[in-house]
């Protein structure tokens, strides 16, 4: 009898070779291979540089690709996949954090979980507290369901004003803390967040603190630590994470949150895992176990980020201390003007972020090569090519 591999039309090794993804330069080569495939399919003209949505430019890693391929080729009976694998995914996430499956909820991106938290823990009489400039999902949803929002302006360094947010937390349903904060890219240290949590829970014991760590894997500041341990210990703390950023799976729509079983149960009761798709579950299951790839992605991002920060600094523009895969840069002119000029030259940067839309722009970090190309465009648009070079 033939070994299983030989019975397949292609062995895994052949598959990898076919796609040109063995050996060095793996990821870049893979992208070319997929691009080649798309060309054969008659798809798509060249695309602009996508530096507007804080995506991972490389997509999911090799393990994720292999997992999806295996799932598609396996030939097991229909229906076995999603049900077993969602449990596996919850278990794998739990293990990564030394928790149990009952501490984990998954959603269609972390956005769905952020909404569930606002749904379950706020009301018309229990407001949401959020930064005046932070990820808008919670405030947007609060407005939809009629929950008042206490919007707290950033401090002078464009960081979330933890003191003012704590002061505003009394009687609130949810305090939303995005750390690092999108779109300002700034971070609060583990000590600062710990003190903030204590202060809020002392002032307002029934308030739930929702900590969104979407960009956790891109942080390089050593004062940072995840708040997952606090979430596991305290029913009033939730930590949300996503596969959309460092895991490179924005298109697969999987996010998760960790917390106390009671709290997780409440989040789960709202919409469950019903919006998750099978491909996302399969790919997330592989990606969560692939710590090496996460670290490689973080290193890659750090280098490209530093290059971009340095370029802007030399050109005379300052960015906040980014701990993410994007920069918030003071370009001393309206974002709209800059954005439209960049777009005309094939580079997309982010939309307006009031109240800073007259001076700041958010630029996502692509590959180093992409950032070099983008820098040439930024130079032309800002009129600083010579200085920067």
């Amino acid at each position, binding site marked *: 009898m033939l070994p299983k591999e030989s019975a397949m039309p*292609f062995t895994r090794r052949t598959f990898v070779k076919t796609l040109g993804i063995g050996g060095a330069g793996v990821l870049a080569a893979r992208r070319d291979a997929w691009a080649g495939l798309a060309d*054969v399919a008659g798809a798509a003209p060249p695309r602009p540089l996508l530096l507007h949505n804080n995506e991972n430019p490389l997509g999911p890693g090799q393990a994720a690709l292999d997992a999806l391929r295996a799932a598609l080729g396996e030939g097991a009976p229909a229906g076995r996949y999603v*049900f077993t694998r969602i449990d596996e995914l919850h278990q794998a996430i739990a293990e990564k954090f030394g928790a149990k499956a009952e501490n984990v909820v998954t959603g*269609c991106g972390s956005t769905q979980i952020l909404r569930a938290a606002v749904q379950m823990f706020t009301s018309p009489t229990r407001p949401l507290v959020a930064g005046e400039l932070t990820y808008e999902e919670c405030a947007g949803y609060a407005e939809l369901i009629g929950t008042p929002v206490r919007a707290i302006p950033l401090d002078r360094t464009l960081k979330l004003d933890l003191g003012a947010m704590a002061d505003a937390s009394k009687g609130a349903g949810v305090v939303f803390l995005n750390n690092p904060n999108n779109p300002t890219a700034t971070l609060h240290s583990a000590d600062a967040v710990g003190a903030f949590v204590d202060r809020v829970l002392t002032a307002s014991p029934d308030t739930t603190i929702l900590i969104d760590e979407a960009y956790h894997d891109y942080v390089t500041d050593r004062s940072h630590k995840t708040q997952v341990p606090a979430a596991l210990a305290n029913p009033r703390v939730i930590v949300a994470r996503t596969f959309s950023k460092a895991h490179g799976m924005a*298109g697969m729509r999987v996010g998760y949150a960790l917390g106390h079983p009671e709290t997780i149960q409440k989040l789960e009761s709202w919409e469950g895992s019903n919006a998750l798709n*099978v*491909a996302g579950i399969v790919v997330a299951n592989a990606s969560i176990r692939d710590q090496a790839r996460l670290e490689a992605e973080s290193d890659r991002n750090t280098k490209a980020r530093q290059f971009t920060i340095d370029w802007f600094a030399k050109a005379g523009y300052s960015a906040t201390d980014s701990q993410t895969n994007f920069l918030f840069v003071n370009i001393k002119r309206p974002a709209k003007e800059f954005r439209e000029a960049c777009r005309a030259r094939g580079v997309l940067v982010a939309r307006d972020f009031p109240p800073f839309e007259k001076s700041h722009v958010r630029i996502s970090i692509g590959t180093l090569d992409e950032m070099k190309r983008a820098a040439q465009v930024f130079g032309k648009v800002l009129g600083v090519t010579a200085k920067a070079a």
Partner: protein
Amino acid sequence: MQVSRRSFLDAVGLGARAPLSAALIAARGREAALAAAMPFAAADSAADADEIRISSNENPLGPGRAAMEAFVGAFEDAGRYPTNARPSMADLREAIARRQSVRPENVALGSGSWELLRTAVRLYTSSSRHLVTASPSFESPEQMAQQLGIPVKRVPVDKDGRLDLEGMAKAARWSGLVFFCNPNNPTGGVHTAKAVSEFVGRVLRESPETAILIDEAYHDYVTDPGYATAISLALEHPNVFVTRTLSKAYGMAGLRVGYAIGQARTMEAFNRWAITFNQNSLSVAAAVASLADPAHIEAERARNTEVRAFTTGFFQKLGYRVLPSDTNFVLVELGRPAKEFREACAKEKVLVGRDFPPLEKTHARVSLGTLDEMKRANHVFTAILGK
């Protein structure tokens, strides 16, 4: 390095092995777990290579080859939000619009139709404006109403399992939303275009503030010549809209693609409430390809119709009444509790539908698998039903 599309698809096992690979996407068994809000593990507890899973009204063959190729081809964009992916969510909206001869503004996307049913309950009901649904019918709207503390009026289906149009029209007065599942799950019966149109006209006349959700999840399986989609009614009235899903005939239950059709302003409201990025980039590609492949759906309908006739005939020969079905399942009046029948079948590795109160003491729902699966299942049914 360039790879040919063909060699790539062979490499992922989609060449000669297409039927195997679709299993992931079809995700049979999902509907039961969702509708009953069962934990996923429970739904899968009996998962086994030899079992016949005819419990959840999903296409046993999964999507067609065009969809599978598109799905795999889209992996290039797995890292891109579905708004940036190629094709994008906007492209999917356009593909649906093209398929239904409407404008993209008339389309709202959902993570399966499940999300859209929930949104409809939110948009149109309140503590003083109740939900009207049939009993039994698909439970998602009712479950959402319960979560929000909204009153529900349940109107029993008639003896053939059809929606009681008279009863529902009466219950619709002063209601916020009428959930009109046509054909109705789990009973299988369909109402003609004329009957639906008269019902809508009457409700809008007698209760002008009431919205009507016409769920056409099983549209592609209908063979009744009097039936037609209610999309034209949805385009005509701001408070009427139609939902569809790619989880049934399109065979993509695992990918979570549903949509609603209605007036632009109505769809705007759905989009405002939608889960952010409620499509994934691979599903978008698969859905766009599927919608451009109507022949696959025609073939699936023909296949299902044959299996439906075979299965209906089988139960009738055994002396059981089968409610008229225009879907990919049949509700059989067994005169014994569904639970008893289901558990006996499960022992023989045949999984049939869960309880559907208030008919759970007498009726069992059997989804239609492949003809081969149904032939094998019938041996088990014969042994259990003892005739």
